[in-house]
């Protein structure tokens, strides 16, 4: 496709689909030009990168203005737009770093990070096992479980509820990661100390949310259970716990992020020679930034995937909730 045939497409006189296709092709062509210029660098590359950015921005804007008719197309668009944006950003990062000869110690290009991920996949996997599969999972299950059970107990006593809730709310604002050095002293360098930090970090959000959730069912509904002569346990399992599920899942989602942060930061205070936090602090000491970025990429992936998994379970479990059900 030559530039001449692109021109009318870009003027916007055609249908949005034509315009979209034209812009996509233009962006791809410019990106190709920029890639060919990459080895040389210099101002020509900067110009090409700028052109790619402008074209990609126009493409994103066109896509954002589309109003798809079918819901499937809408969903595809909702993924395609941020994806285009992200890929453009990565591409610009690559061009700027290689074009301006930024030293890789400061900011490695994405290609170098990707290469590091591939070449040291074994090491990254070992860190993942140590930090996530051992420390985070154990701490997360224990912390959330303990918070949940405590909430069930506290719920029986209004006095405790009034006393613990303000404290729980206060604690959730405190920098709890600070207990990491204490836990490392108590439980040693290996993963149990990290799991302990995660337990402390995840306990209070779960407690506060579950207690709030158990109060979520309305008085009418509880009265209905009473007219059925339901016992405390029956009311709990058939009415109050299902009604509390959105709150509990909210805590689970908050905790998914907190747990990973807790485990990684705790590893800054001392670990055996494996683990995500250890790798980050050790490799940055050797100024091996691509490896640090690779580790951060893995952490980001793990964080958003575990969050996504919990969100998925939430959609299945709370299908009746207004924010999930359709119509």
């Amino acid at each position, binding site marked *: 496709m030559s530039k001449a045939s692109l021109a009318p497409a870009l003027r916007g006189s055609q249908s949005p689909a034509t315009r979209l296709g034209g812009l996509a092709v233009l962006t791809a062509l410019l990106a190709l030009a920029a890639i060919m210029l990459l080895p040389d660098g210099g101002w020509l590359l900067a110009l090409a990168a700028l052109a790619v950015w402008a074209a990609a*921005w126009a493409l*994103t804007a066109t*896509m*954002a*203005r589309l109003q798809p008719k079918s819901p499937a197309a809408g969903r595809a668009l*909702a993924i395609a*737009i*941020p994806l*285009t944006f*992200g890929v453009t950003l990565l591409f610009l990062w690559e061009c700027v770093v290689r074009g301006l000869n930024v030293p890789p*110690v400061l900011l490695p290009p994405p290609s170098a990070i990707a290469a590091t991920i591939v070449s040291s996949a074994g090491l990254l996997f070992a860190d993942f096992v140590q930090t996530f599969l051992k420390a985070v999972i154990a701490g997360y299950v224990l912390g959330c479980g303990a918070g949940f059970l405590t909430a069930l107990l506290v719920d029986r006593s209004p*006095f405790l509820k*009034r*006393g*613990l809730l*303000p*404290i729980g709310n*206060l604690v959730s*604002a*405190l*920098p709890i*990661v*600070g207990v990491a*050095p*204490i836990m490392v*002293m108590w439980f040693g360098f290996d993963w149990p100390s990290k799991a302990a930090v995660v337990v402390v970090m995840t306990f209070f959000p779960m407690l506060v949310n579950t207690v709030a959730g158990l109060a*979520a*069912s*309305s*008085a*009418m*509904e*509880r*009265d*209905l259970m009473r007219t059925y002569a339901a016992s405390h346990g029956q009311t709990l399992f058939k*009415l109050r716990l*299902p*009604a509390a599920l*959105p*709150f509990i899942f909210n805590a689970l*989602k908050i905790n*998914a*992020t907190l747990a990973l*942060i807790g485990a*990684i930061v705790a590893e*800054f*205070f*001392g670990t055996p020679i494996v683990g995500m936090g250890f790798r*980050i602090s050790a490799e*940055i000491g050797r100024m091996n930034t691509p490896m*640090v*970025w690779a580790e*951060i990429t893995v952490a*980001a992936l793990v*964080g*958003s995937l575990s*969050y*996504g998994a919990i969100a998925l379970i939430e959609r299945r479990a709370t299908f*009746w909730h*207004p924010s999930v059900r359709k119509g």
Partner: protein
Amino acid sequence: MLLVCRRQQILGTSPRMTAFRRVRPVSSFPHPPLTFSSLPATVGDAVARRQGNRKGPAISASPAIAEPSAGIGYAGPVGRFLRRRAEGRTIPVIAVCLAILGLWYCAAIGVNWATETDKLARAGDYSTLNAVAATWSAERPVLPVPHQIVAEVWKTVFEVRPTSPRSLLFHAWVTLSSTLLGFLFGSALGVLLAVGILFSRTLDKSLMPWVVISQTIPILAIAPMIIVVLNSMGVQGLLPKAFISTYLSFFPVTVGMVKGLRSPDRMLIDLMHSYSANSLQTLVKLRFPASLPFLFTSMKVAVAASLVGAIVGELPTGAVAGLGARLLAGSYYGQTIQIWSALVMASLMAAVLVWLVGLCERAALRRQGMLR
């Protein structure tokens, strides 16, 4: 007016409703909402209590005057004061705090017992009472007891010049300054980005998903790298830490602010439209005031996050100054009391910062007439 109403019906839900949907507890479970449920919760509770739920806890404050046994057990002003506090939150909170303190002292006996009795046994004979006293006054206990921590905080805050590196105030100020700087930058950046997202559909569709995703990743992991890389470029001291705090605090502010700027419902925006207000005027006179509650809520999250960022940012440079440095130095040399006192100071700071934001929130909302 009719037209507006119909438009609202056609549009279905207003943005405000969608904003609240996720947090709103379920009202329609397991049966569709009745007209009854539109009553305020306290009224519903009171009715429920009177309808035979009397055994259940009376959580809402004042009991009805005409209830049976009302007025019986009148115990004078002191008794009334105590009962009101017990029905409120003061006495329960104090009781829970005391229980925690008691547990703490007991735990300290158990945890410190082995090391301390060992020491005492080497020195000679000892009684149980001596051993308990020793577990509460050890120099490097496994678990220091509260009064030791309070004494350490008192000593390092009031008995040392605030300018010396032995003073906790000195370290707290180092952390606080970068926290505040980062928080201010982060909030400003977050508000700006939210306004950008509000006005640009492209930004909304392309950038907003990434902002939301970034909430789910452990951004804090990036802190050591920022510190070390900026350090190698010659940027030291306050700025790198403030940068981390900025980074951590601007995401929640952006998300909350976008929600808040979209919170005015269709009617109000149409009203602005019929006044022929342009989008800037709508922003300043309607959207921004309406977003304040959202802004303050997210700023509370942000200020706590930026404090954590500042503390973690102090770790990789090696214990130089700041509360994070105190934590690290304490863990190097096994100074448990120092770790705990730094932790207490950090917690105090977080509580005060969140409280200050809450104070600003109340002032702003009162000015708007949203609060009495």
